């Protein structure tokens, strides 16, 4: 995988993860172009598109679009399930995740992603194992962030 972007229906970027070295300018250009392309697509259209020399796989969850750029030889369907597993991880961690969780706890979203994918490849696909790693890390924190405690208690 070359990069993953999360953006809202309004085109606001919520998370960006780049697995290839690119300049900030190039990243902004790609983001702009891709957000526009994906938002212009209709709901029933297929989840894959050719974009430059990459394949783009995207899926919408409520107000958020999850969008991955993969290479020629990569598998589209399994990428779609990468996205889904990430959504499941966020959902399990935040408890019915919504866009606001990702805005206010953006650092958590990055941490969870790093446990799941590293360098653009799946590192650990077991939901339990990933969440255990994150929760262990949370235990190491002296005070748990308020936002999380809000709906965990």
């Amino acid at each position, binding site marked *: 995988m070359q990069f993953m972007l999360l953006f809202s229906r309004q085109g606001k*970027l919520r998370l*960006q993860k780049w697995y290839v*070295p690119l300049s900030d300018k190039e990243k*902004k250009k790609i983001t702009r172009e891709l957000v526009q392309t994906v938002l212009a697509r*209709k709901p*029933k*259209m*297929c*989840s*894959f*598109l*050719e974009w430059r*020399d990459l394949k783009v796989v995207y899926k*919408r*969850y*409520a107000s958020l679009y999850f969008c991955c750029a993969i290479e*020629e*030889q990569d*598998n*589209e*369907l*399994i990428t*779609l*399930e*990468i996205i*889904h597993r990430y959504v499941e991880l966020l959902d*399990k961690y935040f*408890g*019915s995740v*919504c866009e*606001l969780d990702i*805005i*206010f706890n*953006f*650092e958590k979203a*990055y*941490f969870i992603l*790093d446990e799941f994918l*590293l*360098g653009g*490849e*799946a*590192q*650990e*696909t*077991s939901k339990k*194992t990933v969440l255990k*790693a994150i929760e*262990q890390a949370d235990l*190491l*924190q*002296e*005070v*748990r*962030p*308020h*936002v999380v*405690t*809000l*709906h965990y208690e």
Partner: protein
Amino acid sequence: ADVIATARWTNQRRAALSQRKEAYAYMPAVSKGDGMRGLAVFISDIRNCKSKEAEIKRINKELANIRSKFKGDKALDGYSKKKYVCKLLFIFLLGHDIDFGHMEAVNLLSSNKYTEKQIGYLFISVLVNSNSELIRLINNAIKNDLSSRNPTFMCLALHCIANVGSREMAEAFASEIPRILVAGDTMDSVKQSAALCLLRLYKTSPDLVLMGEWTSRVVHLLNDQHMGVVTAAISLITCLSQKNPDEFKTCVSLAVSRLSRIVSSASTDLQDYTYYFVPAPWLSCKLLRLLQCYPPPEDGAVKGRLVECLETILNKAQEPPKSKKVQHSNAKNAILFEAISLIIHYDSEPNLLVRACNQLGQFLQHRETNLRYLALESMCTLASSEFSHEAVKTHIETVINALKTERDVSVRQRAADLLYAMCDRSNAKQIVAEMLSYLETADYSIREEMVLKVAILAEKYAVDYSWYVDTILNLIRIAGDYVSEEVWYRVIQIVINRDDVQGYAAKTVFEALQAPACHENMVKVGGYILGEFGNLIAGDPRSSPLVQFNLLHSKFHLCSVPTRALLLSAYIKFINLFPETKATIQEVLRCDSQIRNSDVELQQRAVEYLKLSSIASTDVLATVLEEMPPFPERESSILAKLKKKKGPGAVSVPELDDKREGGELNGGGDRGPDTASTPSPSADLLGIRSAAPIGATPTSTGSLLVDVFSEAGPAAPSAAVNDDGFLRFVCKNNGVLFENQLLQIGIKSEYRQNLGRMYLFYGNKTSVQFASFTTTVSCPGELQSHILSTKPVEPLVEGGAQIQQVLNIECLTDFSEAPLLNIKFRYGGALQNLSLKLPVTINKFFQPTEMTSHDFFQRWKQLSQPQQEAQKIFKANHGMDTEVLKAKLLGLGTALLDDVDPNPENYVCAGVIQTKGQQVGCLLRLEPNGQAQMYRLTLRCSKDSVSMRLCELLAQQF
């Protein structure tokens, strides 16, 4: 409870959401004493900003605040530092520039509080600064964490390396990480991170990641008990196998047995690695992908086991689903498609290929758009296998239907691609007709490509040329705006080369021009063809010479300048063909709007043609305006254009009957010299520009000279450029440029003045034939620094055979980018794609110059401007043996001058670089320091860019 319905929210979720919204809205007020209260307040503030200006104002206020805290006298505690660094990160992620805070983030790395360390690493991962001082500090912190034996800290450090992946990090850690990866006492989670971290470093700096002694232990990770470790390790192993297939080939049998265990396991066996009733889908896909790096296993037992797996996967596709969830079917089908890719890659099991094709056929009518899309895409590759081509063809009606009815343009695009791929002589007329009718309503985004495809198919499968001419003229009628120059040049080229179609072409264009509104491209083709062959229809009074002329001239005023120029040339041709039109045409040429036209080209043509027609005798006129000679046979330049548009590898021209049965469109087998020609902007009828107006592209090979030079940049090869061999050839001309388990490429080259000739020898090391072998040479960087022309290579290279290719090289000006050689061929069904830098370097064009010490230093002083000099001090990479050094310096092409430098240890050389446009004098001085094992290299040249380039090249030679 872990199910999220796409876009559909249960009431429960809705309630949870609105509760959350409230919580976030009030949070700043209600929260106290939490970890990052300030951050939440800040995010909340930003969200409440009504305008972009307000947001920027709020951010600037915050930046000023953070800056003052960081600069303040009071030392900040870890918590505050973490909070501010996190705020900066948030600001950066909003899209604003951040130019401070890096130091504070680096400080956090050495905190012993996990959460502070974690934020520090996140900041560094997102916002690395190339500031070398900082990189050293970061690397130090990472080093500490890696040796901490605390697995959570180790993982954080490894994640950071994997996220940044810079060369500096590779230099620091590439040798350490393999050890962590294979050590017996490393925790599983650390192993997983280490494997992928290494993968990232390998991708950025393959030269620094040496597996060497670890190879076999890494391969054996495929056997690891922990599925997570296998999942992470296999990505690394796949990447390494692609680059060094021989060293890793033991992974094949391990992968097969692992796959077999997964495929035959019950859906509950793998516990949390089962995803919606599908056992380990990610790992399965990766295993199948790894196997695609290799030919079919030679060991019968392994192969049998693998075929069994593939059959099981195909069988499972027919079983009823274990769940209705789309995740279940996606995961299952992901494996299925990967298995089909492997079957296609092997291209050796007819039974499996046909089963794959049938399975895809079912998907073509599936209700899931995604599956239809993928089936169409996958079938494209099946169409090029001889075993499944016929089976693919049986789906033609479904595919045509998809082209007509799919609602998503990207799916229609796939359908068009598949029609193109399944096209052969038997169905060409049907497919071309369908594509033409689709063009009338096709989306603008794909019209140009569709036009190219129709043009290629029409040309390739034309048995009767009137059909071909009709098809192209239809193309112009339907989608004139999308018909590129290549397409209409091509129809003219073919008509000129085939005398049996000329009369028909003249008649047809004449009829087409009758339409009141016809596309300008039609006028171009009409002008050219009537100018050449109007005489063939002049016998009919309805298309007498004057009628023809008047018809053309009625379009003249609506046309652009290049078309008008072309028409003027057609008119002068008319004067030769039909003397009776002379007076009328001279009248037209003479009128002010022509002879005083503000456009220089038009004015010049009008004046010259008028003069020519008045003073030249009939004989002279007949000679000058003779019918165009046949064009040398070339591969369709349209194909080259399509390849460029789609990127290499993307065009699967129906390859099965590449041999073009039934005579070639292009007539004579006489293959003209492949000169570089630029498409003339108006396809000059007089042939003033000697070369054909069509891109020069030899049959079935690259050397797309015109295509290289006609646009801003060369087509970027998709294969990673391999330049390991390149530097070895700076000081020598012959040797092996590249070798892998399939192919060896040797070169021999010779240079004289600004010209060179390079012989490339492609050796097939296997016992299997390479099919569709093509090579393309392109020149990146400054265009036209060198012209290369090639004769095509044969598309088939038998097992064990060697073929030769000659490149002619001309150095036009000095250059620094080397030309790229792209090689593509099919080996056992799999497309191989390889890009190499050709070792054509500026020093190849050196003429040695002998001179005395006095002369040398006089010139040295003359070249004393700072930019004329380039200097490098570097460590010796090889032994500092005098004879070896001398041989290298001579190999460089310069004269090695004795008794010049007062210090006998030093070497001085002189030479002149010959380019077409100029000569560049170069002086070189190499000062070895045996004790320090260092060199100082100084170059002074009359052109700065040459000093720089030579210095770069040479610094890596000694």
